């Protein structure tokens, strides 16, 4: 069956040609000027899918767990795996031949744009920008076929999946058509809304120099004209700081500085703005609905690139977190700016603030002074938590951006191979663990000291060197037990820290073993990646993005550790307040919230609100139901087995024994020091690039994340097998005669 058509040959059937293609066809019929366009129907997608195992692989990927239980990170991970399936699957010869012939006949080697044309896009509800991918400035038959596959894959992008879930689009019936257009590199491009999505009496024209890509992904701020919709006259003109523009270069599209004469001049004259607004109104008449029109201007002529119905409230209601999730996807330019902000401002400031707080002697403060300090620390903690969500978390997208580029360049068998290039860097967690091990070795060499610790706790030790080492550690890294869980005081936690240190002694082998071979492999992967990038003339971008991703990876750990120190300082003040209230015989002082503590400190007659600090919910135990095999994500390759240690409180951390399997809701920043002791890591929170997974991978420890209810279905003492290759956790005793790869018998 035929798959590739000229625009003049297609029907209005959006199921076959998709919303974008059918809209373009109508515009062409109505006499608007368009770039030369080919349409690859959904039939091509169906042929590609049905001739391969992709269909079932996608289903397997999406049914790993209930879709509604998947965190945004997990959806992203699944989408990356699916994307790789498309990259690695060759197009059938017949299909490739038909598309290639049409491309060669109609475009003769010109630069092209490959756009999605999804059948659902004609429905107003799904018609928002950027749900699926488009690629600009692609040249040559092979690369175009590759990008057609990537457009198909974008039917399963994280964005698409997030929205398709709600739209209840049937996964199995999903399909995608593709539009291939000649790249018209106008001097000015833009988007026109015949109706302003936020005000029905207005219309909007946005314009930038160069290509539209800068405007669409937010890298270039446009000039903005607000129109009186009825009169089609200009109401206001907002001028941005014009600094950059997007231009095709080689096989790429890059952001470049704008020459000064242009930066002082609006990309459109008022007359031109009116002309393109009127055009959009005419297009609205063609479709009978307000339109969002993308265009580019060559000489005095406007080429229409695409048109779709305007939709309001694209990010959903306020409770809908998807808009926020999608805002985590930052452009390279945006991430570079974020990096500077984080490296030069946030991180040093956060470290400084934690260190300053640690200097204050809380015991010397008056009750009023302590209340003030607690209030201050609460605010500091809230401030940094907000910055963490606002800037640090989006910065993690640097890893993802690189991952996509790496996979596009290398198309590796393992879609997460790129993480190898990022790993093995000096992380704060690893330095902290090294420091702990050093103290451990010191204790291990001194049996007297061990006895003294066992007998009287760490507080009663008079070994000066030991105390010096401990103080040095705490002043550099803080006490990871203090503040992690509300049920321990910081003094008690000191003993617990020492008990972990004892475990750490002589544990250097795990780390060293895991490093051998890793470095060599990393160097080899890096050189292959950069070599291929060089061939495509994209080496500079590849190197830049790799560097950005490495920073992003490192901060995933470092920001957590320092935020942990801030939280510790807050907790120390809270703890001091609770102690003082306890001495005053205030009821339930040990569990009071920060608000209650600081009010009670200054006002002796203050009546407690009765709200207690959150306690961990009681475990649901059912003796007749037992989990045998649980499915999560394979977040750290390897297989291991051991007794489970479920972490509910700091006490559990302190009891952790070398060779046990760490089972937790999430590996908190202050828990990572346990990881090198663990045989395996099981986490409820899902994702391949989350903090816990990164740490486990650094130590070469088998890790499965995203196991729903891991911490309630698995009990301390259960024998568990962690299969980090397949993402499977098996609970229960195994036949000891069965040897697992990498597990000692």
């Amino acid at each position, binding site marked *: 069956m035929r798959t590739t058509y000229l625009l003049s040959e297609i029907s209005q059937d959006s199921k076959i040609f998709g919303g974008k293609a059918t809209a373009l066809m109508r515009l062409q019929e109505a006499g608007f000027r368009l770039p030369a366009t080919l349409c690859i129907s959904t039939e091509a997608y169906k042929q590609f899918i049905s001739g391969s*195992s992709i269909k*079932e*692989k996608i289903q397997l990927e999406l049914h790993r767990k209930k879709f509604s239980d998947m965190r945004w990170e997990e959806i992203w991970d699944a989408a990356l795996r699916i994307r790789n399936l498309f990259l690695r699957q060759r197009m059938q010869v017949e299909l490739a031949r038909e598309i290639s012939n049409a491309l060669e006949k109609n475009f003769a080697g010109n630069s092209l744009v490959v756009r999605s044309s999804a059948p659902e896009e004609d429905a107003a509800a799904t018609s928002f920008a950027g749900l699926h991918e488009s690629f600009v400035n692609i040249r040559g038959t092979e690369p175009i076929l590759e990008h057609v596959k990537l457009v198909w894959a974008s039917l399963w992008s994280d964005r698409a999946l997030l929205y398709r879930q709600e739209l209840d689009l049937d996964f199995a019936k999903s399909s995608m058509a593709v539009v291939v257009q000649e790249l018209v590199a106008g001097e000015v491009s833009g988007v026109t809304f015949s109706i302003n999505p936020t005000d029905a009496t207005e219309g909007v024209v946005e314009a930038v120099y160069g290509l539209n890509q800068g405007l669409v992904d937010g890298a270039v701020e446009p000039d903005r004209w607000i129109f009186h919709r009825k009169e089609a006259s200009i109401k206001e003109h907002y001028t941005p700081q014009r600094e950059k523009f997007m231009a095709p270069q080689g096989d790429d599209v890059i952001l470049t500085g704008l020459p000064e004469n242009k930066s002082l001049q609006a990309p459109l004259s008022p007359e031109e703005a009116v002309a393109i607004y009127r055009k959009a109104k005419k297009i609205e008449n063609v479709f009978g609905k307000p339109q969002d029109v993308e265009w580019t201007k060559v000489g005095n002529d406007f080429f229409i690139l695409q048109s779709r119905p305007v939709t309001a409230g694209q990010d959903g209601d306020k409770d809908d977190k998807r808009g926020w999730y999608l805002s985590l996807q930052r452009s390279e330019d945006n991430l570079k700016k974020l990096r500077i902000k984080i490296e030069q401002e946030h991180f040093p400031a956060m470290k400084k603030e934690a260190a300053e707080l640690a200097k204050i002697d809380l015991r010397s403060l008056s009750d009023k002074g302590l209340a003030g300090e607690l209030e201050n620390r609460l605010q500091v903690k809230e401030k940094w938590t907000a910055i963490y969500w606002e800037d640090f978390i989006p910065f993690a997208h640097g890893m993802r951006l690189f991952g996509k580029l790496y996979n596009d360049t290398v198309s590796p068998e393992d879609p997460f191979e790129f993480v190898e290039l990022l790993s093995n860097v000096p992380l704060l967690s690893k330095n902290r663990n090294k420091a702990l091990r050093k103290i451990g070795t010191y204790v291990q060499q001194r049996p007297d000291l061990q006895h003294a610790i066992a007998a009287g706790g760490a507080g009663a030790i008079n070994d000066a060197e030991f105390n010096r080492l401990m103080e040095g550690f705490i002043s550099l890294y803080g006490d990871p037990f203090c503040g992690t869980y509300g049920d321990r005081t910081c003094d008690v936690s000191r003993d617990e820290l020492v008990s972990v240190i004892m475990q750490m002694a002589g544990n250097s082998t795990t780390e060293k073993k895991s490093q051998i071979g890793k470095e060599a492999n990393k160097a080899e992967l890096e050189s292959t990646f950069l070599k291929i990038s060089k061939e495509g003339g994209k080496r500079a971008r590849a190197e830049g993005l790799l560097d950005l991703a490495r920073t992003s990876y490192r901060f995933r750990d470092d920001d957590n550790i320092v935020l942990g120190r801030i939280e510790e300082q807050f907790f120390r003040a809270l703890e001091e307040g609770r102690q003082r209230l306890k001495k005053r015989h205030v009821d339930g002082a040990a569990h009071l919230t920060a608000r209650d503590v600081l009010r009670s400190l200054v006002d002796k007659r203050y009546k407690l609100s009765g709200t207690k600090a959150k306690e961990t919910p009681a475990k649901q135990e059912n003796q007749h139901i037992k989990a045998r095999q649980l499915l999560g994500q394979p977040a750290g390759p390897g297989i291991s*087995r051991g007794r489970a240690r479920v972490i509910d409180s700091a006490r559990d951390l302190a009891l952790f024994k070398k060779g046990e399997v760490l089972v937790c809701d999430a590996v908190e920043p202050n828990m990572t020091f346990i990881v090198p002791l663990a045989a395996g890591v099981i986490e409820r929170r899902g994702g391949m690039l989350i903090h816990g997974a990164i740490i486990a991978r650094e130590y070469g420890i088998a890790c499965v994340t995203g196991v729903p209810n891991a911490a309630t279905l698995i009990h301390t003492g259960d024998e568990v097998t962690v*299969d980090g*290759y397949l993402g*499977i956790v*098996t609970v229960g005793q195994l*036949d000891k005669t*069965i040897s697992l790869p990498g597990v000692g018998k």
Partner: protein
Amino acid sequence: MTNKKQLQREIAELLLSQKLAVLATQSSEVFPYASLIAFAATDDLHKIVFSTPKATRKFANIKHNPKVSLLIDDRSNNAKDFHDAKAVTVLGAVERIDIDASQKELASLYLSKHPYLEDFLRSPSTAFIIISVWSYYLVSRFQEVMELHIHDENDIPAF
């Protein structure tokens, strides 16, 4: 059904038409243990292969006792199954547990039937199991049972 070739063909068709089989193994506590597996059979019906993670019960059972039974059927969960469905019971023994993918031909036979299990099969924590079949028992028309013997019982290798 009277002729061996016809019986062989009918069994082969059934095996080819089905992707999943019920596998029965026996634990050290002597309980039979049934599992659903994705299988493939060789054209000559001599071998049936499947894959499993090594941390599973069925794998432990096989290590303990290589004798297994399988059930493969084409039922559709309708009343017509009583006259229309076919089921074949297989007896055999695990002749090899392949951990290094040395059985390339059998592995590619398996993957051509289950291409979506490629990553699963390649995982270092997965074992590829090769069953040497001793006999088939084909049940059709509600109660008609025909036997096809591939090996003598004495041929079954001892573990």
